[in-house]
């Protein structure tokens, strides 16, 4: 008998008002796996992650996390179950410092330990601890968002375009961080950058107009030209 996946999405529909954005989307995420969600702008990638995190309600279908049905659960309950979210654009809490951000995400008893891990992964943040997060550069904000996810000790991380709009040197740092993160958790990664997806992804789902149109091994999908064709590259 195969073990139940960490995250199982079964034929979900998600709507904004009357507009249906996701139609019957299903996916599975196993242990220490990076599953990439690929698609053009407006395909429903961010909507999918928001629905998985509980920010958007699921109209139909089921979301199972660590074997439990969490479909109707709010975001904070999912977070306590081990789900963490790195949102697109890496929004922050205005007026709060980098240290505050890490403090909110971490358990009080593990604060010192998790902070040390973050500083090892992103040394630049150790020089910014007292700085207000909204004054960080775009790349540093992305690092902070990933660091916040990490200190919450997640079992599953949802990452929405962590390398979008950042300098190549920071893309390399984030890519390296992702490779290390997968040793401690599984990741659903929305990524437009095919090279990054290929470097860290094990499997991929291609979304088009809110539905899964292709799925399979990341490398095979790439080598067969399906990803480039679907993305119009």
């Amino acid at each position, binding site marked *: 008998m195969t073990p139940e996946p960490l995250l199982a999405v079964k034929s979900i529909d998600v709507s904004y008002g009357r507009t249906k954005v996701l139609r019957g989307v299903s996916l599975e995420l196993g242990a220490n796996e990076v599953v990439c969600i690929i698609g053009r702008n407006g395909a429903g990638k961010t909507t999918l992650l928001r629905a998985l995190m509980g920010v958007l309600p699921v109209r139909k279908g089921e979301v199972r996390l660590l074997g439990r049905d969490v479909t109707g659960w709010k975001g904070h309950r999912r*977070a306590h179950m081990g789900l*963490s979210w790195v949102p697109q654009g890496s929004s922050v*809490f*205005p007026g709060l410092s980098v240290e*505050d951000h890490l403090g*909110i995400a971490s358990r009080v008893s593990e604060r010192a330990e998790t902070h040390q891990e973050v500083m090892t992964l992103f040394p630049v943040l150790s020089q910014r601890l007292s700085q207000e997060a909204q004054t960080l550069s*775009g790349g540093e904000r992305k690092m902070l968002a990933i660091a916040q996810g990490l200190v919450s000790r997640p079992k599953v991380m949802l990452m929405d375009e962590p390398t979008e709009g950042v300098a190549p040197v920071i893309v390399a740092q984030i890519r390296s961080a992702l490779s290390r993160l997968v040793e401690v958790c599984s990741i659903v990664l929305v990524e437009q950058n095919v090279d990054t997806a290929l470097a860290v992804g094990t499997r991929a789902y291609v979304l088009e107009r809110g539905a899964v149109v292709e799925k399979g091994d990341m490398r095979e999908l790439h080598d067969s030209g399906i990803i480039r064709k679907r993305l119009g590259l």
Partner: protein
Amino acid sequence: MSDLLTNAFSVLSLASVFILTALGLHFTFGLLGLVNLAHGEFLLVGAYIAYAIQQTTGSTVAGVMLAPLGAAALGLVMERSLLRIFYDRPLDSLLVTFGLSVIMRQGVQLIYSAVPRQVRDPLRGSLTLLDVNIPKWRLLIVVVDVLLITGIFVLLSRTTFGLRARACVRNPELAETMGIDVSWVRAFLFAIGSGLAGLAGGLLAPISTLDPQFGLLLLVNAFLVVILGGVGSLPGLVIGGLMLGGSLALLQFFIPTVLAQILVLVLAVLGVRVRPFLIERRGERAHPTSSTAVT
């Protein structure tokens, strides 16, 4: 010298009343963003709880201590049952809290009628310090103000709850996804705000005449203090209270009280009008060559 100190205490006493009435609004309006027109009625409820307890037990102190608990419980019930769906809907929240204020006021009138009531001052009399006569209860209000401001500062800036509360206020969606139950944090903040209003009502009861209109004028002053000092800013609230209390106390020396109150309202409106420009200029001085963060 004695006159100067007497006047200084008058200013401090009036300012402390303004600040006391506005502390609860700092939570419900300043932090949560609810245009809470029922704030005055939470003051009213606190005052009448103090009155009822004093009538039953003979103890004003017990009444003052129970007033915040009763008001906080009422606030919690209202938030959970109704107000929690009105965050981020300012016009709707204004209408709903106005409706609640009318219901609460009429409720008090139904139970206690419109006949003015008096709560006994258990600390009758004055202290004499440096030749200045200071009414004991008014001194108590100043002391309680200082303790409350310190306590609120510590709660919001030095505790895990405070950190999480600030996160909920500034980015509720992100806070929720980081494991914070935003809905309950908001409920607790509203209950704290209501409780503080209840405490203010209880403390002001022995130096006021109680009737169902008790909260109305206090509501206007509380909003002025919060807005003048900068919505959501605790130091701003204290400064706003000192400015309003100070100007009213000073004007009352020279002109009749009613005229002084009108003039203070005009000054407050002017202050709110000018405030954004002052902040802008201060910001420019602090960051003369502000640069955009780059990737």
